């Protein structure tokens, strides 16, 4: 179940990332507060040409507009992500997966444990046998931040941009500082998720890409095979 939901999340996340990028291109300006438009001073501007001629950029060029299908796919992938997350969350609590595999052991709740593990990475030391079948304290913490902070936040900020949803629950936008703030936070949290993805894939590559891939697809590791 963990593996199935992982790969569904991968598919949904890639779709959300590509389509989210396409949507940003139609208005690559970001604001803080409730409102913002081309007559408002932006918080920052991404220096790219826009896909709409009404947005002033320093380019004499308007990019092709891909917003239509991007929006359809963005919201469909968001549903896949949300439903997958719900299944994973319920399963994780019910099966003890969170408790067993993700919450760091009590003895690891110290800065020292983190420092030691970072030092171990710095020395490029191979994972010891005990670590092959479980996650170390840094992995556990990173995964928990992604699962409990970043994904919920990206879903919340996404919903806080919906005119109908915020009509029913105005606090979801107000607590973030307004609709445009929600859009800006949505953008940055997406970047944090991308940074996680890059580090995550880099670590897999360093620890043996194919053996890790096989483990995540089939659930088999060297140890579990030898045990059979």
């Amino acid at each position, binding site marked *: 179940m963990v593996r199935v939901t992982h790969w569904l999340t991968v598919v949904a996340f890639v779709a959300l990332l590509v389509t989210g990028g396409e949507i940003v291109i139609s208005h690559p*300006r970001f604001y803080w507060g409730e*409102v*913002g*438009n081309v007559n408002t001073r932006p918080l920052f501007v991404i220096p790219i040409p826009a896909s709409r001629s009404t947005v002033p950029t320093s380019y004499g060029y308007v990019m092709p507009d891909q917003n*239509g299908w991007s929006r359809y796919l963005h919201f469909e992938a968001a549903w896949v992500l949300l439903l997958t997350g719900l299944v994973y969350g319920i399963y994780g609590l019910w099966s003890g997966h969170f408790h067993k595999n993700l919450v760091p052991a009590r003895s690891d709740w110290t800065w020292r444990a983190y420092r030691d593990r970072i030092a171990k990475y710095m020395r490029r030391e191979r994972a010891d046998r005990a670590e092959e079948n479980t996650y170390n304290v840094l992995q556990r913490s990173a995964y928990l931040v992604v699962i409990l902070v970043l994904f919920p936040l990206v879903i919340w900020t996404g919903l806080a941009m*919906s*005119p109908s949803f*915020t009509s029913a629950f105005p606090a979801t936008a107000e607590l973030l500082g307004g609709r445009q703030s929600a*859009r800006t936070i949505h953008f940055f949290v997406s970047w944090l998720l991308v940074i996680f993805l890059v580090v995550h894939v880099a670590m897999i590559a360093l620890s043996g890409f194919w053996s890790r891939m096989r483990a995540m697809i089939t659930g088999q590791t060297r140890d579990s095979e030898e045990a059979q």
Partner: protein
Amino acid sequence: MNPISRRRLIYGGVAAAASLGGLAVADRVATRYGLIPPDGGGIYGPGETLTYACQRLLTARVPAREFPRSMISKNPFANAVAPPTEEFKRLQAGGFRDWRLVVDGTVARPMSLSLADLRSLPSQNQITEVACEEGWSYIAEWIGTPLSGVLREAGVLPHSRYVVYYPMEEGLWESIDMADAMHPHTFLTLGMNDGDLPVPFGGPLRLRLPRQLGYKSLKYLTHVTVTDDIKKFGSGKGSVDPDYGYSWYAGI
């Protein structure tokens, strides 16, 4: 095959059968209660249907989000509009005295209303946000009369399901379901920020639908048709938006 994988296979089979059965039931319930949007087919259909069904179950009757007067945008952005047609220029030269809003379709009393007729109806105001699908937004005060009052006067027939509406510009049209059409914040808008609605913002007459993205708030409104069968209009997907790749329901 060892016992564990056999058990897994049985569990998997039961789960698959249950979800297929669940989907069939959900489909019948959704059709019965009007939870499937006109563009609920195709590869993006499941996502659109989930969004629309959830919104209808959760938010059909909630009021739009309103703002204090102090939050009205100083420099609202009118967005690009098509160059005015000869017909529009002629009406504008006449102070829009000959502008007409036709109300027809599945109503007991079809009507043709002038702007003066609309001004004689109970006037209301709302301070709401226009949010464009591109990402930008502004807040303004909108003055007008709820569409629901006009529809009640026209006598909407009981089997009606959608309200289709057209601007002056050829080829554009939109529609909303009855929940949105009868919503108290769905306005026939004649004024903005204490003045007449300026032409760049859709004057003389714009439909305001604050709980959906800006593209549903059509400018230069001339015609409202109530219908029981949305499939008869255009390609049957509820508006021209799906033809351009945009979703029909823009409340998200």
